[in-house]
């Protein structure tokens, strides 16, 4: 650990904040339908969208209608993606002659992309045709991110509005997310990535003859346009098998810095959007800033622990570059690992499975906290607001008052729904994970011996339930058993959280706003930030400490004493 390294971490966080800030304010204008500066160009396109799709932009939706729209839209997208993979053999733009994807892998991948998880049980360049990558993967990278943003905006409207009963229009929110935020950002980022060396073509795979006379086939494709949005939309499903470790997916230190910033940027900006939408009569800016600080502290804490673990590997030190790229070295690999799991991006620039036991535990724990440390585009902040509701509830119990957040009374119904969100998340991890550790079909997929093998399974179900998508890649997940169980985990982790979240939005939107009084618990203070962080860590700790003790912790303690497996 060097001073230069600390400076790098500080520079990274500062760079993210400098861009997230104006972006957040811009997004607030997008979602409150104020002039954005590019309406002249995009307004006609947007109106054409609504005309073609028969969307009435003035019609607001009740939370139930909003939730149904969200589910129907996602199911249709999922079916299209499934069909593309099953039929890719017959469709154009299949230069590498990829055959139809198997049914269970197609189900897994379609659900994976629809839920913003982007778990890869396939190798992009060896499984998917260019058409599938473009019309399947790339499209879902946009729509699943837009879905997350829409749900978040609906929840924020729930708190922002006074005694209303609608939350906005799902289709309008999705359309505006794509047209005004994701697409322009992706176009700029694509050009940057191509400049740095990411391929963007429809060429067949290149045949090269090396200086030693050997043949090398080099995979090509429309990579940059997909990688741009997979980073920005916290999707994380790579164009190539090894994701952003691939030198075509992430060729330079500069591209690495930009991709590592992109994977957190929109989620970070949305925290500031939230503050702006709440408004200054409830000190919205300070409220947003408090959440931003809490998230930043948790992220930096994770980076520091992983960095320490990877640079103090003891007897394992000679192996610490396993799964890491030379150009990123140890520090840029751990910053990415922490950021990609704190946000629910899940792209990787190094192989978490080959980290030291404690270094690998950091990405795992980040996901176990529920992807609320910036988290997914939209989904991260709506998860965080659930934790905030719990925090004000606990604070309310301590002082014996009805809890409030942003002037809205938090009552039994909201608490029940928030607890439902929190309880749903660990279920697939602990139940399906536990099942996989006793069933022969589950055990068959494990590569690593000893406690590390348990961690591989634990990581897979945590990653899929948290809709992250990064992996301890040693696990052979492309089997019918794992494809289907992980699909279930992804669906539960996404939609069984979205629906109660929208229900909370529907419940609070109708409430009046209580004016601030001496008895109001301030939710923008340093004290509240501390309480919130403590609650997030305690909930995660209580739920997962026993299984962590059996995996990475025991592996660390034994390896320190020289035990190998």
């Amino acid at each position, binding site marked *: 650990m060097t001073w230069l390294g600390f*400076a790098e971490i500080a*520079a990274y966080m500062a760079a993210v904040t400098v861009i997230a800030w104006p972006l957040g304010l811009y997004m607030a204008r997008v979602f409150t339908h104020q002039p954005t500066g590019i309406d002249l160009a995009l307004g006609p396109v947007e109106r054409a969208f609504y005309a073609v*799709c*028969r*969307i009435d932009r003035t019609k607001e939706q009740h939370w139930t209608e909003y939730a*149904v729209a969200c589910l*129907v*839209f996602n199911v*249709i997208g999922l079916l299209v993606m499934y069909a593309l993979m099953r039929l890719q053999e017959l469709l154009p733009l299949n230069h590498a002659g990829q055959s139809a994807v198997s049914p269970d892998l197609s189900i897994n991948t379609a659900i994976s992309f629809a839920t913003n998880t982007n778990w890869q049980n396939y190798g992009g360049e*060896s499984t998917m045709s260019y058409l599938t990558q473009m019309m399947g993967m*790339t499209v879902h990278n946009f729509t699943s991110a837009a879905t997350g943003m829409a749900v978040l905006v609906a929840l924020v409207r729930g708190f922002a509005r006074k005694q209303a009963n609608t939350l906005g229009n799902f*289709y309008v929110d999705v359309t505006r997310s*794509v047209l005004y935020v994701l*697409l322009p950002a992706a*176009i700029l980022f*694509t*050009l940057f990535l*191509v*400049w*740095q060396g990411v*391929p963007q*073509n429809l*060429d067949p795979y*290149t045949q*090269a*003859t090396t*200086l030693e006379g050997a043949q*090398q*086939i080099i*995979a090509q494709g429309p990579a*940059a346009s997909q990688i741009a*949005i997979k980073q920005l939309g916290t999707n994380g499903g790579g164009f*190539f*098998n*090894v994701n952003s*470790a*691939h*030198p*075509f997916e992430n*060729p330079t230190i*500069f591209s690495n810095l930009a991709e590592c910033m992109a994977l957190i940027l929109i989620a970070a900006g949305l925290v500031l959007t939230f503050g702006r939408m709440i408004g200054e009569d409830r000190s919205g800016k300070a409220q947003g800033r408090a959440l931003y600080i809490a998230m930043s502290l948790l992220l930096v804490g994770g980076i520091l622990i992983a960095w320490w673990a990877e640079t103090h590997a003891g007897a*394992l030190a*000679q*192996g*610490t*570059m*396993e*799964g890491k*790229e*030379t*150009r990123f*070295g140890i520090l840029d690999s751990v910053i990415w690992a922490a950021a990609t799991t704190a946000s629910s991006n899940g792209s*990787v620039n190094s*192989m978490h*499975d*080959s980290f030291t036991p404690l270094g690998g535990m950091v990405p795992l724990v980040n996901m176990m906290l529920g992807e609320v440390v910036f988290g997914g585009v939209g989904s991260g902040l709506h998860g965080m607001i659930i934790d905030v509701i719990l925090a004000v509830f606990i604070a309310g119990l301590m002082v014996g008052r009805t809890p409030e957040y942003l002037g809205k009374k938090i009552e039994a119904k909201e608490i029940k729904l928030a607890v439902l969100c929190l309880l749903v998340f660990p279920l697939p991890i602990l139940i399906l994970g536990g099942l996989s550790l006793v069933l022969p079909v589950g055990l068959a997929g494990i590569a690593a011996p*000893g406690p590390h093998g348990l961690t591989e399974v634990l990581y897979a179900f945590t990653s899929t339930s948290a809709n992250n998508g990064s992996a*301890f890649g040693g696990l052979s997940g492309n089997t019918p058993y794992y494809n289907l169980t992980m699909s279930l985990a992804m669906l539960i982790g996404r939609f069984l959280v979205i629906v109660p979240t929208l229900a909370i939005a529907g419940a609070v939107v109708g409430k009046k706003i209580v004016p601030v009084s001496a008895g109001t618990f301030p939710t923008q203070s340093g004290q509240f930030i501390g309480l919130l962080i403590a609650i997030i860590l305690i909930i995660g700790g209580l739920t997962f400490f026993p299984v962590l003790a059996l995996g990475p912790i025991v*592996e660390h303690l034994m390896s320190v004493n020289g035990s190998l*497996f």
Partner: protein
Amino acid sequence: MIKQLIPATMLTLVLTLICGLAYPLLMTQLADKIFPSQAHGSLIVKNGTIVGSSLIGQNFTKPEYFHPRPSATTVPDPNDATKTVAAPYNAASSAASNAALTAKAQVDAIAAASDALRQENPASADLPIPSELVTASGSGLDPHVSPEGAKYQAARIAEARKAKPDDILALIDGKTEGKLFGLFGAPTVNVLSLNLSLDERWPIK
């Protein structure tokens, strides 16, 4: 539910056309015009043949070339399609080992790779071995080694090429790329670029 089907289906369709066709195809056109070399994979052509990509690592085994890191990429076993066999630097199927550092097999593999490296480079046997020379990269296609990783091999190459060791070290220094803004990433040397220079300056007759 039913009345939601029309807008949901139409929106999916329109977004698929815009984000799935118009956007990637427009980007492909633009990339081809603005950054033609990068858009097609930064390929290196020598005497009319493509010798590789400046971004993608290649396998070098002869003593007169710099060697890259170990690679975990594979190809399907020709005798049994359900299995794979090692094929280092297979750029049509990137892969990592995903080995656990605490696995005995992994510790043994690193020790064996270190022994082999010392035997190949007897003049450097006393130097510490940089970790990346005995571990597989995340992609299996890492085009770089660290400057120390290249210098470890300098004496062997000087001997095979009948060049002065100092000239080889100077070549490595000249090809070393430092940290970005003095802060981010790690210093690297591109192996293929080194080897192209070797062939130019000290050709093997």
